[in-house]
């Protein structure tokens, strides 16, 4: 149900955004954006001048003034529309998630075990409810009793059901998901209206959206540019008096609106909202806009090995018979020993055996006794009724077993075991009646394409660190193979924490992903902590983002979304300021040509007349905003080519391009406007 519609302008959204564009004209709302607020004041003045010019002369014709007023109004509406459409898209995305949690009846259970049916939006933090197969979970919570398979496709889009159980790290359930089997007792963990989703929805809605620190800084800079242009325009009046040139209010206000950075000013909040919307589309719920920005600055990325760098668990890749043992015997023994082994490793041994020989029997002889793995024996296996004892386990314990039974240890086996270890694999030694038959090689399978992603991260300047419980030798091998920069081997929860603190002490920003309760402190310590939605409530509270897909590689996407957000702001600011050069060349000669004819030489665009020059500049200034909305919503592409090369590229595209584009645009508009004036 992921509504990954990539269409920028869906008719329904456009309609609501259009309506919002007018509502946002309210000065109280406009005040949040100083650049556009000054445009609104200018528009109001133009409205007055337009009415004034109906009955008075000296300020230009009514029609001319009316057109200027109209274009300024359009400029405002375009800017509002940009923000509104970004909000609408964000809200639509959030709504599709929110739909999943529409009012559902909850079976609230009190301390005496009495069940009452209560509406889900009346559930309070700490309430308990039960959910049985076929029912929808009414709200977010933590399982306190029981185990269930749950269909989370409503949230994640993943159709395979997942198992959630009390205790442990997979105890969290999300409202709107469906219980497929069994019965669970759940404790409500959030107050109504305060779930992560609610927070996220608030973030994309204008009213409660907090500006991020970086956005504040940019707003200050843009405001100061605006003040400079207020100074320029106000002082122009006495200058013009000195030069005996009458200047109309329309011309002054047009010059002002053209000069102030309306392009970036109009798109600034849309860019911010769109950034969060992109995060939401990637199925990440962020708790603040700042977190997304910070993600773009990340220097160090901590990733768990299992599930992120490697596919799930280790897999058997090869049978290595001991000298004098036939491969068939070894495989047969291995299969027998693994038949009742439910671990992924055990299953993978059978898979590997089947791969080599389809006709292999998967039936244990009647009356066999499965021997479970214990920490003491560090092996598992099977005893068959005909007296065969097959064991598989770690080399050390198998060796002891063989030696104790009086068998010799073959050098070839030892060599093989060492070879597998140094290759990053895990050797499992198999014995039959305490005699060593051979070795099974288990290997971590590195996810396809992961090395390329790490390479991309390296180019971005992000250091990747693999966290694993493996021994240093294995960890090193996998780290090298996957292309991570560093690893923490035999990691305990506090190791992550220490590593993060150490990196932060040297000034770096660290991101990590985690799910378990013991990850919570590290998630809180990290600058960007992404908790998996399947994780515990503690983990989700500690982090500043929640990944609905439970996809550990999501961090890479988040980093790029953060960078894109800043780049879009920077390039559009540059573009907006660069535009002013051409606008000056259009408007300033137009202002003075009447009294200083020599300034015709400055009219390098050969614009038709002063009126058409001013109109063309204002029209260009207005229509560039909607033309850039798609760019603002999609974001400027990030290329990991190194900061200096990226600066050169963007400076050329948006700086030089920003100087050239309006010369062409204004000239073209003038060709049309010139015909009508």
């Amino acid at each position, binding site marked *: 149900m992921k509504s990954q519609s990539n269409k920028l302008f869906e008719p329904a959204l456009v309609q609501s955004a259009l309506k919002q564009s007018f509502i946002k004209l309210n000065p109280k709302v406009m005040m949040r954006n100083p650049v556009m607020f000054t445009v609104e004041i200018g528009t109001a003045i133009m409205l007055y001048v337009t009415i004034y010019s109906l009955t008075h002369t000296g300020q230009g014709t009514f029609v001319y003034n009316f057109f200027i007023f109209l274009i300024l109004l359009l400029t405002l509406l375009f800017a509002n529309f940009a923000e509104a459409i970004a909000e609408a898209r964000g809200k639509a995305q959030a709504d599709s998630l929110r739909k999943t949690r529409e009012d559902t009846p909850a079976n609230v259970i009190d301390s005496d075990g009495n069940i009452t049916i209560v509406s889900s939006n009346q559930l309070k933090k700490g309430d308990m409810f039960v959910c049985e197969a076929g029912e929808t979970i009414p709200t977010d919570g933590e399982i306190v009793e029981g185990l269930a398979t749950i269909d989370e496709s409503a949230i994640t889009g993943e159709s395979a059901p997942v198992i959630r159980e009390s205790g442990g790290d997979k105890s969290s359930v999300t409202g709107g998901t469906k219980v497929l089997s069994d019965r669970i007792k759940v404790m409500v963990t959030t107050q109504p209206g305060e779930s992560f989703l609610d927070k996220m929805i608030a973030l994309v809605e204008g009213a409660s959206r907090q500006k991020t620190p970086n956005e504040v800084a940019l707003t200050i800079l843009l405001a100061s540019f605006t003040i400079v242009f207020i100074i320029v325009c106000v*002082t122009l009046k006495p200058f013009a008096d000195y030069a005996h040139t009458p200047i109309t209010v329309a011309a002054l206000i047009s010059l002002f609106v053209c*000069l102030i950075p309306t392009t970036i000013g109009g798109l600034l909040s849309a860019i911010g909202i769109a950034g969060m919307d992109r995060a939401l589309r990637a199925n990440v719920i962020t708790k603040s806009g700042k977190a997304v920005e910070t993600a773009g600055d990340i220097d160090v990325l901590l990733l768990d090995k299992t599930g992120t760098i490697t596919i799930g668990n280790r897999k058997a890749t090869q049978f290595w018979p001991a000298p004098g043992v036939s491969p068939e015997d070894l495989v047969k023994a291995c299969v027998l020993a693994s038949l009742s082994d439910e671990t992924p490793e055990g299953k993978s041994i059978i898979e590997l055996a089947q791969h080599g020989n389809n006709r292999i029997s998967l039936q244990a002889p009647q009356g066999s006794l499965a021997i479970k793995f214990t920490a003491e024996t560090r092996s598992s296996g099977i005893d068959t009724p005909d007296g065969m004892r097959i064991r598989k386990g770690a080399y050390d314990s198998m060796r002891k077993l063989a030696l104790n039974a009086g068998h010799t240890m073959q050098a070839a086996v030892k060599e093989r075991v060492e070879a597998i270890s140094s290759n990053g694999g895990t050797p499992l030694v198999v014995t039959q009646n305490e005699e060593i038959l051979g070795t099974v090689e288990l290997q971590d399978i590195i996810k396809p394409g992961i090395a390329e992603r790490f390479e991309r991260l390296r180019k971005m300047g992000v250091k990747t660190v693999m966290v694993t419980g493996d021994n240093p030798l294995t960890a090193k091998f996998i780290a090298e193979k996957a292309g991570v920069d560093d690893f923490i081997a035999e990691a305990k929860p506090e190791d992550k924490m220490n590593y993060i603190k150490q990196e932060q002490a040297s000034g770096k920003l660290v991101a990590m992903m985690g799910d378990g309760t013991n990850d919570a402190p590290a998630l809180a310590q990290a600058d960007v902590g992404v908790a998996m939605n399947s994780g515990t409530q503690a983990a989700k509270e500690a982090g500043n983002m929640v990944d609905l897909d439970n996809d550990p590689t999501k961090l890479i996407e988040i980093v790029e979304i953060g960078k894109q957000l800043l780049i879009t702001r920077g390039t559009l600011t540059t573009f907006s300021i660069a535009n002013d050069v051409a606008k000056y060349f259009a408007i300033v000669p137009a202002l003075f040509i009447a009294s200083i004819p020599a300034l015709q030489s400055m009219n390098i665009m050969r614009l038709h007349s002063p009126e058409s020059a001013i109109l063309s500049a204002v029209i260009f200034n207005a229509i560039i905003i909607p033309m850039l909305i798609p760019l603002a919503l999609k974001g400027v592409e*990030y290329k990991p080519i190194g*900061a200096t090369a990226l600066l050169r590229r963007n400076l050329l595209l948006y700086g030089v391009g920003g100087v050239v584009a309006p010369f062409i645009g204004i000239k073209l508009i003038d060709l049309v406007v010139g015909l009508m004036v």
Partner: protein
Amino acid sequence: MNTELLGIIASFAITLIIAIPLGKYLAKMFAGEHVWTDFMKPLERGIFKLAGINPKEPMNWKQFLKAMMVINILWLAYGFFVLIYQDKLPLNPDGNPGMTADLAFNTIISFVVNCNLQHYSGESGLTYLTQHFIVMFLQFTSAATGIAAAVALFKAFRDKTTTDLGNFWDFFVKSITRLLLPLSIVIALILTFNGTPSSYAGKDQFISMQGDIVNVSRGPAAQMIAIKHLGTNGGGWFGANSAHPLENPNYLTNMVEIVSQMIVPMAMILAFGIFIRRKKLGLVIFGVMTVGMFMLMIPTITSELGGNPAIAKMGITQATGAMEGKEVRFGPTATAYWSTLTTIVSTGSVNGMHDSTMPLTGLWQLLGMMINGFFGGCGVGILNYFIYLIIAVFISGLMVGRTPEFLGHKVEAREVKIAAIITLLSPLLIMAGTAIASYVFMAHGNADWAVKPANWLNNPGYHGFSEMLYEMTSANANNGSGFEGLGDNNIFWNVSTGIILILGRFLPIFGPIAIAGLLAQKKYVPESAGTLRVDTVTFGLMTFAIILVLNALSYFPALVLGPIAEYFSMIK
């Protein structure tokens, strides 16, 4: 090659040859490393002991600025009264009168802030006492104040994280004892041997060939002319400044004066790179400034050598270029070279009349002062450039997708806010000042002032506008040169430029020092592949673009109505 051109190439080469080792020396000296001028230590120790100052005491940015302001305010008060009562004080052989309050206000501010805008003429407006103990004294201290402030900026970025910007008194005293004083002595001696007066005797007399008795002002001028250039002050002993034959007797002294006004600003940029152990950053900044300098200088020289189109229309050939307002002993090339340097480094001394230069030359002179960061004044040049740098860092940081950072310190809202205020200060002072002047000229032309506003301007029209714009720009840039021709010794210009001078001096010092202090306190972020390096040519280009665009956008309409309109009307 034409010898005039050779002359300026040689001047530039000599400037570089002196500035490079001087930069290295300054970096070492201010870092407290062992240098050959350590023999000055006993003198410095004596000064500190006398003043009860501990030069080792670390100062944070607020303490540093406080120390700087306390001493500057003291000089303001002291100078104001001495100027008013100079007629009653000794060392006044020519019997010159005391200053009016508004002129004294303007003059004392002008010298305290290293501007040396002169609304008086040295020969008749000052006494030897005030020339010496106000003007010359302040020419040392104001330059040293600027240098000390710049060293605080250096100090902020030398170590990873620090609150200590160094000790103001230490930097200030060392700037004088180990840089300004020794070099001034050398320069003054060269000038004296070439004919610049240095005696305390009063006016001399000679009988001209027409038989008139001519009074010639003189006095201990050589000493002052040395520091006037070395400290990028620019205030002349004589009213005609370095165009005066006694202030600048020959081509050699012209070269000495032009070299001496450039060496400290150039050396400070190189010293910055060496001091913070990022030599390449110093070189990139140096490169940007040099390119900027040539972009202003080459069209200036071309427009002056091209001669005056108005004279050309009369059918007169101008083989030597435009000669109005120029000294024959220097020629137009050296005068054009000087006019560019004196406007970019905020010296403001002149060896020819800027009022008489071609309209486009006036444009380049104005732009040089508006930018005020291509080398710039003693110490303050790099502070002005630093503001541009912060804006460039912020915008380009965004463009590469990282929270902007400068040398490992994150640039956030607070720093941007300060940089934004300083950025808009110059347009505010220059444009509002000129607007008020235009308004008074037009609306109150007959006000009963010492000079009627309607009679302010020697030239009507666009050139007159340029005269007013130039005066305000010069005041804001703390430059001090003038489009003479403006009747500026009256209450309006004395007070308005006085206010602009003091705001245009201290706020652009406060801003950068505050930003540097705030940044230096922040946690140091080590560089990674994602960090935008500021010592690359690309970033240099970005800064250059920011400088050009910011200034062009702020002043375009004013420049169009002044020099540009004059130019196009002239060639019509």
